[in-house]
């Protein structure tokens, strides 16, 4: 137990995490390349044409992954934020800040690909469906987090304030989702029912899953790259950063 704790705290120190992240990044890029190629190959060459949606359904391979990642990254971000608040570890706040822009980008991609899917399928770029609206609000929450952490110069305060916002957001996401859903069912007349998913062949599901894994690997790689920049900027006055820079 105590051994494990030493291990844990060793890697939560920015000075040891920085080189570790540097070593891990190529591995995650490699995993990303393999899974992305496999996912795209299944998506475009193995998965059959959908009998209802024709070839248009192939957007699913990027849309579903982006939507999952946008939600999942917010949870991970809130987890790191909570860890930072509870244990006062410096690295947690940096991880939360490194994840936020990628999460916001995935939320944008989810909306973008959703619109491009919606146009040929439902005849409109946008419907006020519960899922779409919640995704849009999730993008707003990411924007709020990024704006708040960038507005505060003191990094310790920025981390903690961002942490509270992220946690408040996590508590609110289910409330927002259910309120939008309730609102949507009351105004059903105007919108299209999206609850019926196209019947999916197993191979389509596999392609989707592999594409989502590829995006996951991408997220880890980019977040590690970004956290390295943040570590350097914040620790610039420490000895280990000076040595690192002097040795270049």
């Amino acid at each position, binding site marked *: 137990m105590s051994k494990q704790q030493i291990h844990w705290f060793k890697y939560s120190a920015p000075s040891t995490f920085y080189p570790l992240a540097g070593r891990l990044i190529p591995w995650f890029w490699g995993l990303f390349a393999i899974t992305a190629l496999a996912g795209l190959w299944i998506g475009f060459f193995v998965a059959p044409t959908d009998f209802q949606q024709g070839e248009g359904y192939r*957007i699913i391979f990027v849309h579903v992954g982006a939507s999952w990642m946008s939600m999942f990254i917010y949870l991970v971000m809130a987890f790191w934020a909570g860890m930072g608040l509870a244990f006062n570890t410096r690295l947690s706040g940096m991880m939360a800040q490194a994840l936020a822009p990628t999460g916001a*980008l995935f939320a944008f991609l989810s909306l973008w690909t959703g619109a491009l899917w919606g146009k040929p399928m439902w005849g409109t770029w946008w419907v006020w469906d519960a899922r779409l609206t919640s995704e849009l609000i999730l993008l707003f929450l990411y924007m709020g987090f990024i704006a708040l952490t960038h507005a505060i110069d003191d990094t310790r305060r920025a981390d903690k304030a961002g942490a509270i916002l992220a946690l408040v957001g996590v508590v609110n996401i289910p409330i927002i989702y259910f309120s939008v859903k309730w609102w949507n069912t009351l105004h059903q007349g105007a919108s299209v029912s999206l609850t019926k998913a196209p019947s999916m062949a197993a191979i389509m599901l596999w392609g989707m899953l592999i594409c989502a894994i590829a995006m996951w690997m991408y997220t880890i790689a980019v977040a590690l790259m970004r956290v390295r920049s943040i570590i350097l900027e914040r620790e610039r006055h420490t000895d280990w950063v000076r040595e690192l*820079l002097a040795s270049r």
Partner: protein
Amino acid sequence: MHWNSFSDFIAMGGYGLYVWGSFGVTALVMILEPWLVRRRHRLTQQRLARQLRAEAKLEQTP
């Protein structure tokens, strides 16, 4: 394999604009973001190294 030709592949059964619009923008984002992050890291390293050299110089000259 259900594409008879390359133009068939591009057309995506009439959904080409939508499918390639989705995948294209996703690819663009997934190329641009790592590039920008990499650039930021490089610039940070350069800036901090420059600061360090300037400080060292300042210490040398009495």
